[in-house]
């Protein structure tokens, strides 16, 4: 059966670690990294990429516009 699969790309060095994307993700795909980016922020990353459905909720709420979203049927 075809399954919707999504994937996000976070521009790590522009992320400010606000966590707004993480709490807006309906599938729990996103977590905050244990290390910081060059600005000193714990950046967001897809910790559970297999859960992503490409709904773009995270990108919608990212104040810094650093998330790009892809979606396909597999």
């Amino acid at each position, binding site marked *: 059966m075809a399954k919707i699969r*999504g*994937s996000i790309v976070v521009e790590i060095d522009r992320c400010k670690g606000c*966590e*707004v994307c993480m709490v807006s993700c309906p599938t729990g795909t996103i977590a905050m990294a244990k290390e910081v980016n060059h600005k000193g922020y714990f950046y967001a990353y897809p910790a559970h*990429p297999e859960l992503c459905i490409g709904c773009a909720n995270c990108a919608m709420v990212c104040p810094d*516009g650093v998330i790009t*979203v892809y979606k396909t049927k597999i």
Partner: protein
Amino acid sequence: MAQATGIKEIIKPENLVYRKTKVMTDNILSYCPGCGHGTAHRILAEIIDEEGLQSETIGISPVGCSVLLYEFIDIDWQEAAHGRAPALATAIKRLLPDKFVFTYQGDGDLAAIGTAETIHTCNRGENILIIFINNGIYGMTGGQMAPTTLPGMKSSTSPYGRDVKLMGNPLKMTDIVATLPGTYYVTRQSVHTPVNVRKTKKAIRKAVHYQKLNKGTCFIEIVSNCPSGWKMTPVEANKWMEANMFPFYPLGDLKVPAEENAQKTTNSEKND
């Protein structure tokens, strides 16, 4: 490894569903983490892009945290003195009536120093869009109390909370302008969740179309956060905003065009 290949298969140009619009410049936003200004800028830029208005738009940027807005959205801009954006927008729209003209103003800008400009521009019914970012505080200058600060809300100049007996009542500018004959569309939205972002985007798109009709001022308040001024994390600030700002500044339309109301009535009559 199979998983990694899976992801590579997904990340392909033909599968792209969302990317920041090119109408936003590549400059790093000057805002604190989680600040709603960034989201508001981005959806405004998306509408300008989607409606093909990049070379047809003139924005008036304010004084406040978003003072550098002209660095972030790649359109024509005019910077206004604090609070004077609606006056500038009036002149620009009258001189160049075919352009899409908007102001983008904070609550200190629009509801304190610029109260007169706001009210008279709306009362004259200038054919512009006013976007009002209400975070209940003077963000840029260090979180001082604004006319919009809630009763009991702490700020750097009301450290024990706003005492209305001493400091006066908060001002609901959006409610005021909705009563004026010059306004055509008045709504209050937010940008802190995906659903709210989509609704606000819809409201901005409507305002773009209404401006083409030349029917009066469109006014969109975005109730927003100031995590730094409120001394909260962004996620806490958004929750606090839902619990405290929204009961005082309820989201929704305050004034919709008469034509649209009539349309809705006919539709519902048809459905009956």
